[in-house]
């Protein structure tokens, strides 16, 4: 993959993640986000978080499956992951401002009484240390092994995010099913690919 193409693609990722936010802000200002703009922003940022998180998590299995063709994808994992956290922050901000009306009292009540809000907050709190330690400096400082171990939390965050989504919708609403299936495929793909790789390149037997 030539370097210039990577740069072009990165600019594309930035635009694809930032332009919708500009559209959301402008639409909110113009009141063109539908009859219930708060709801529109909530679901846009919430679904956006889960989708970007799914893309982030799909990168490693894809690279393992096609190491010759898709190895370069690693250059995008941190970028997309950071945008997932950015969308999660916007989602949280939507709640704090537009639902809780910046009232600390309302937030404390919600977090203690509403399990879907508790799950959502847990997901965000799990993503926070990952975002903080996303720098190359952090990897070096922590050591690859520890860093990897910490960043396994992303799976817990994804599950918490999905639970938050399912608990948040009314009974009889199946909207979260699609993204849930995508996560199931991604999570199941990892051990399957590892098993398949092991069969292809068996560990050489040590000859005494």
């Amino acid at each position, binding site marked *: 993959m030539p370097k210039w193409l990577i740069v072009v693609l990165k600019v594309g990722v930035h635009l694809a993640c930032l*332009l919708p936010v500009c*559209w959301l802000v402008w639409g909110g200002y113009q009141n063109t986000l539908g*009859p219930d703009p708060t709801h529109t922003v909530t679901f846009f940022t919430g679904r956006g978080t889960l989708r970007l998180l799914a893309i982030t998590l799909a990168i490693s299995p894809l690279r393992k499956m096609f190491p010759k063709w898709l190895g370069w994808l690693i250059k995008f994992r941190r970028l997309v992951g950071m945008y997932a956290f950015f969308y999660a922050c916007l989602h949280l901000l939507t709640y704090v401002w537009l*639902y809780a009306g910046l009232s600390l009292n309302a937030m404390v009540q919600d977090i203690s009484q509403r399990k879907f809000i508790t799950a959502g907050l847990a997901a965000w709190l799990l993503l926070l240390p990952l975002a903080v330690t996303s720098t190359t400096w952090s990897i070096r400082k922590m050591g690859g092994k520890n860093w990897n171990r910490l960043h396994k939390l992303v799976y817990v965050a994804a599950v918490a995010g999905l639970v938050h989504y399912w608990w948040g919708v*009314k009974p009889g609403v199946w909207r979260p099913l699609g993204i849930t299936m995508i996560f199931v495929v991604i999570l199941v793909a990892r051990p399957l690919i590892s098993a398949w790789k092991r069969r292809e390149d068996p560990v050489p037997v040590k000859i005494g």
Partner: protein
Amino acid sequence: MPSKKYEAPGAEITPKEVFLNRRKFMAGAAAAGVGLAAAGGAMELLEPHKSVMAANQLKTVGSQWNGNGLNETSFYNITHYNNFYEFGTSKSDPAEYAYKLKTEPWTVEVGGLVHNKKTFDIDALMKLSPLEDRVYRFRCVEAWSMVIPWVGYSLSKLINEVQPLGSAKYVKFVSVDRPSQEPGIMNVSIPWPYTEGLRMDEAMHPLTMLTVGLYGQALPNQSGAPVRIIVPWKYGFKSPKSIVKIEFVKNQPETTWNEIAPDAYGFYSNVNPNVDRVQWSQARERVIGAPIWKQLQPTQMFNGYADEVAGLYKGMDLRRYY
């Protein structure tokens, strides 16, 4: 003095404005959403809506509930953002699919514990009592709210007509159940037909309305044509749409949402900012159509009708009877 409206009702009905707004929305979305997974969430909003069913103007008289000082929600928003699971679970589904329901001919069977069992033709219901313009608050259990100018009269007028027996303690309402005309009935797995109920004194309360119109016109299909019940101090799901049967019964009837999730949706379901059984808070609500930074407002006890209806629940533990 005319109240300030988010959009003037006359202008809202103008398809051109609606059309242009939608165009603006779509152009913005298209520009922003190119190639982005996250933009998919907006796609549901881009679906073109079927236009509001052609409606005829009704002859109406005024009423004491003239919505003094309330900002009426636009006709477009009332008719394009609502729940009517018979047509699907998305709030844009009713506007899109409700045209399939045939509302002529239409009869409402009134029976059970009454002296005069009777089946009313819709035309007879329209003439039973003068049609009043009433502007009511409407509060959905999903924590959004509207202000809606309904047309109709007190349900008590109809109840008096059939003379309930002393043994009648509750009223049960049954909505139309026609899978061939209501696609949601096949796709949404909740018990059909949609059934709701009120205690006798609630049904007799003058605020409880037999509703046949909206903004001075016959009800559009997606709003529950040709006849529905409106109970303004309860969450919206207690106001059944497109009703075909009213039955007077002795015991508290089974009601649809109560059957689906009894912990979340009580039989009473009075609007109450202090009690919330669903997953979201009922202390606040989002005003439909308002700019995003002005949407949030505190919810009022009994949706602002406490002076009129609090007496019905005197001595009742509203936490227990939610």
